[in-house]
């Protein structure tokens, strides 16, 4: 397939994925905004006022980056896992399998769809958060880079989950039992410096910690971890997940008998 044809194919999958979630925006874009608004009201204003400052920021300001990134993570993941699994369920994935599409275009197309949803929801949540606090960006470059790379990483993870999933239960097990706990324990609501040393070390094994802290650095200029390490980990995860997804499609895991 020529490069121009690949471009048109990638554009097709991306538009299809975008239309898929935007057609049902009441289910995909609005709920995260409501959830985050509730977080701001409860944790930020009601409980946060009792907590005091962390790293020189009021509690509500401190949790803003984590809450935005949490929405990006869960929506980028949810988009890919539900879209790819649905296409397996309806067998519409066969439309792509019989076409000359290279596997990397399929992976990139679904990932682009997941990223778009993650980014759009992230922007909506950011706008919602501006009703509760004033956002001042410390580093636009770091903020945008973490925002985009994190959505890509979790879109790829969602795709891999969908490839393996055989039932609708399988697409909710990982988000419920792994993704949500890791996100909550990734330093959204606290600095790991507040933890005992043992739990600080345990927390360092959580990849989401690096993303949230890098994003917090982008917005607030404070972080618990080294920024370079965070970017290296994010990029390594992206490369690993992309290659793994490619390998799964090449072998036809979950889609080809």
């Amino acid at each position: 397939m020529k490069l121009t044809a690949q471009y048109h194919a990638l554009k097709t999958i991306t538009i299809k994925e975008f239309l898929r979630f935007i057609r049902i925006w009441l289910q995909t874009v609005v709920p995260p905004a409501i959830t985050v608004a509730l977080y701001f009201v409860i944790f930020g204003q009601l409980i946060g006022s009792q907590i005091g400052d962390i790293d020189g920021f009021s509690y509500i300001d401190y949790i803003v980056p984590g809450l935005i990134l949490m929405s990006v993570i869960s929506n980028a993941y949810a988009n890919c896992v539900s879209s790819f699994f649905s296409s397996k369920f309806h067998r519409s994935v066969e439309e792509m399998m019989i076409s000359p599409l290279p596997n990397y275009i399929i992976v990139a197309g679904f990932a682009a769809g997941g990223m778009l949803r993650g980014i759009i929801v992230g922007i909506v949540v950011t706008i919602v958060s501006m009703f509760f606090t004033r956002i001042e960006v410390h580093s636009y470059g770091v903020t945008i880079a973490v925002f985009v790379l994190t959505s890509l990483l979790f879109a790829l993870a969602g795709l891999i989950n969908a490839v393996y999933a055989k039932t609708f239960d399988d697409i909710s097990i990982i988000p419920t039992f792994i993704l949500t706990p890791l996100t909550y324990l990734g330093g959204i609501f606290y600095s790991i410096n507040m933890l005992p040393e043992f739990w600080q070390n345990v927390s360092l094994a959580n990849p989401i910690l690096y993303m949230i802290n890098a994003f917090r650095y982008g917005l607030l200029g404070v972080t618990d971890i080294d920024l370079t390490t965070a970017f290296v980990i994010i990029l390594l995860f992206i490369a690993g997940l992309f290659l793994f997804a490619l390998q799964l499609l090449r072998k036809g895991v979950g889609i080809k008998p």
Partner: protein
Amino acid sequence: MKALEINNLHKTYRNGNRALSGVNLEVNPGDFYALLGPNGAGKSTTIGIICSLINKTSGKVRVYGVDLDSDPAAARMHIGLVPQEFNFNIFEPVGEILINQAGYYGIPRKLARERAEIYLNKLELWDRRYDMARELSGGMKRRLMIARALVHEPRLLILDEPTAGVDIEIRHAMWNFMRELNANGTTIILTTHYLEEAESLCNNIAIIDQGVTIEQTNMRSLLDRLHMETFVLYLDNEVDVLPDCGDYHARLLDKSTMEVDKLKGQDLNDLYARLSACGLQVVSMRNKSNRLEQLFISMLNNNGNR
């Protein structure tokens, strides 16, 4: 160069089920090719392998000279598939399904829209282009899959039971459409359980049974193998006694209908002449049973299937 060439194709599923044990096919460009076999014979597995939906265990597949293993993308470019079961997203609008399918073949969006309009019009679905696919009737869904398979204008169209479950009117409209496509140069492979459909449309035929090709020939020479055909004749006058039919073995079904066995080499004109001599004219006639069906059943019996 063959439109499709399959050599010694084998497929054993992970659960140990051996679906194909040596399928060989040769389809010429421009053929209207029937791929027949009983349920579970391996037709859909063969099609699945040709279309990259199923991994083969061994064997070679070439599409218009392109090896499926060495250049799968180029091979797939030539193929359009209308599968047996609906395999589109029912929550997607009809028009978008076609535009997206064209996009997967690298067709720019503007051209994809034009193609979608052409094929949706041809399949009489243009008025439903904004409707979700789930809102279509069964026949419309089948037509949608045909339109989708054509949107990248493949040279080889594979139709896996395309008329299953559609009413007679739509079936005949689909037959005409398929004939037109074939006449315009598209090679067509058709699997069907309606043997009169295969006999009426196809010029070449392969029969698969128990994962093996048991016959591959042209329709005419296959039908020539019939040693005897039975015709039902409708007469213009009523008779009480069977008229003189010479060497023909005949029976009277009622006063104006008779059944005649015609052996290979016999000529129906002789029979008409004899009936005419008795003052009887044949108003109309039909085959008692489908000729291909008779052969099909006898071949499967010979293969130890039944």
